């Protein structure tokens, strides 16, 4: 009898927990369903339809949109986008990791100040910040005028409107998204772990390589994804800093919807992007798991 009561009580507690969980998850889940999953479903459906002459779609089913995406023109644009986004990510990592590491070495007051400074640029509109680079770097801009005035160069450098300028713009825009996750991974590392390594005879370099670095890896992966994903789909930076002379997948998708009035093909390109990014998340999850698994084992 008592056992039955206990079980009933336990079930009631479980039910309440489940109810609470459902209630807490409901807003988030419905948001994702209504504003992401359902529209994504529409986009997927559109990939099988035929382009309407004046925009929209005609309900004639076809797979042609997918075969068109395999054209070398589009593959080449995809590869170039990946290269540009990967370069921005790598540079962000090279700058972001030491920065995050240095911040963890500061007193907690200074840490807060530096973290604030890192997110500060987000308070200004992205478009304006990107335009600022044009003002700085153009042939009549501050940098060139300054360098000419102090006699370093006599002809203005052509810095803008090349893939390099696009990489710079993306790096600038998304660097904070690299620093923050790495920082949060680094601060969580118990200093005792490093001390233990040193006590057991590791040099500081060895302790860094064998203790700090592996434990920071999840932060590095998250930061890399945070920088890579918005970079590869960005179309404002290539347009402004690339002078419209560099085309990335984001521009391509935008043009299909807004210029060519070719919604089905634009949808195919969008779905390809989603699949590619899902793959990336999958790889990240796997790597993450193997790293953490090693630590536990």
């Amino acid at each position, binding site marked *: 009898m008592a056992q039955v009561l206990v079980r009933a009580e336990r079930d009631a507690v479980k039910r309440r927990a489940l109810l609470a969980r459902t209630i807490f998850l409901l807003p988030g889940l419905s948001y994702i369903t209504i504003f992401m999953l359902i529209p994504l479903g529409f986009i997927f459906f559109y990939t099988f339809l035929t382009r309407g002459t*004046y925009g929209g779609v005609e309900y004639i089913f076809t797979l042609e949109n997918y075969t068109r995406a395999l054209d070398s023109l589009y593959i080449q644009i995809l590869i170039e986008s990946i290269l540009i986004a990967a370069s921005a990510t790598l540079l962000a990592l090279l700058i972001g990791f030491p920065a995050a590491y240095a911040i963890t070495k500061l007193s907690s007051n200074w840490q807060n100040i530096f973290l604030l400074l890192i997110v500060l640029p987000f308070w200004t509109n992205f478009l304006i910040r990107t335009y600022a680079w044009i003002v700085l770097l153009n042939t009549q801009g501050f940098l060139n005028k300054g360098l000419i005035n102090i006699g370093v160069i006599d002809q203005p450098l*052509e810095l803008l409107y090349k893939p390099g300028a696009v990489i710079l713009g993306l790096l600038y825009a998304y660097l904070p998204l690299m620093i923050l996750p790495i920082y949060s991974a680094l601060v969580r590392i118990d200093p005792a772990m490093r001390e233990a390594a040193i006590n057991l005879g590791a040099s500081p370099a060895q302790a860094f390589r064998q203790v700090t670095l592996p434990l920071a890896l999840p932060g590095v992966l998250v930061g890399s994804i945070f920088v890579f994903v918005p970079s590869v789909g960005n179309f404002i930076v290539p*347009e402004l800093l690339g002078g*419209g002379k560099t085309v990335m997948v984001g521009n*391509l998708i935008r043009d299909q919807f807004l210029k060519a009035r070719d919604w089905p093909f634009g949808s195919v390109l969008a779905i390809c992007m989603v699949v590619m990014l899902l793959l990336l998340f999958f790889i990240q999850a796997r790597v993450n798991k193997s790293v953490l698994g090693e630590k536990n084992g």
Partner: protein
Amino acid sequence: MRMVRKATVGSVAALLLIGLSACGGAGSGSSALDPNADLSQQKLTVSIWAAYYPEDIAAKFEEKFGTKVTITNHATNEEVMAKLTAGGDSGIDVAFVSGQFAQALAAQGLLENLDKSLIPNSSNLIKEAEQLSYDPGAKYSLPYAWGTTGICYRSDLMKGDEPTSWNDLLTPKAKYKGKVTMLATERWLMLPAQKALGYSANTQDEAEMAKVKDLLIKAKANLLAYDDTTFYERLVSGEAVMVESWDGWCNYGTAKNKNIKFVVPSEGSDLWADTMVVLKTSKNKEAAHAFLNYIYDADVHSWVVDNILYKVPNTAAMAKSLPALVGDFPNMGISPNELLQQEGLVDLGKASSLYTRIATEVTAK
């Protein structure tokens, strides 16, 4: 028995079809608008480009006719097209779109034929502008502003080399390389090469467009950038010496530096028009016509000339504003006849895919 039934079904279907087409016929004609309708009982929603109209226009119109006016802004033709072609009633009564887009809307049967008796001010419409290629006879659209595309350049930085041909832009002299921009929007991205090669700006011929592509790829090597929005600023700063430009936009440069001049290249150019249309789905058609009529009032329409520095196909408005402006902005003086010698842009229909593909190939090279 089956035969009979089939015949019955057939004749019923035929009757239905006749009935439907009769209804359609009645609907597409001048669907009896009431000249004495109480405009204060109607509400208008107008979609127009931002900053392309007097800010107080809604308030002024309401004051005069009692009609509540809501203005919504669109950034591009494509944006408002998406709303208007999505099916059903978009809630928009009057839309401002470029001519070739009005043509596309009309082809889908979405536009109301205008009843000119309700737009008495349309007598101000410049006669030559009644026969624009996207809507000969101005049946379903009334042009708001019009102009052409050419080369905007710094006469002081190009002394002795003033451009006269599209080739000056496409294959500039060595000292101007890297100081040239072209427009990024497809139709105007193609235009210089199309005209330089002697083709139509509306060509759908794939062989011609292949040559256009080759020329544009060669031209890209000499470009500073493709730029739709800040090209005149680049002339002011001296970052660029010549840019492909719409006539009105070149004036924004001229306003800051008198050495910035505009030329229509000798090979000819396009004739573009932004136009006003009334949607067939509108339930406030009388007020919509009154709005078009209000715009065509010389005092209202001249605002566009004075503030946007665009030409308007309105005799009275031009007569009112032009004398004070033409000295500072010579391209405002391009006559309607000169404009009409340029080629009107028309909708490309299915060939717009071809244009997008070539634009992608050129910009991605």
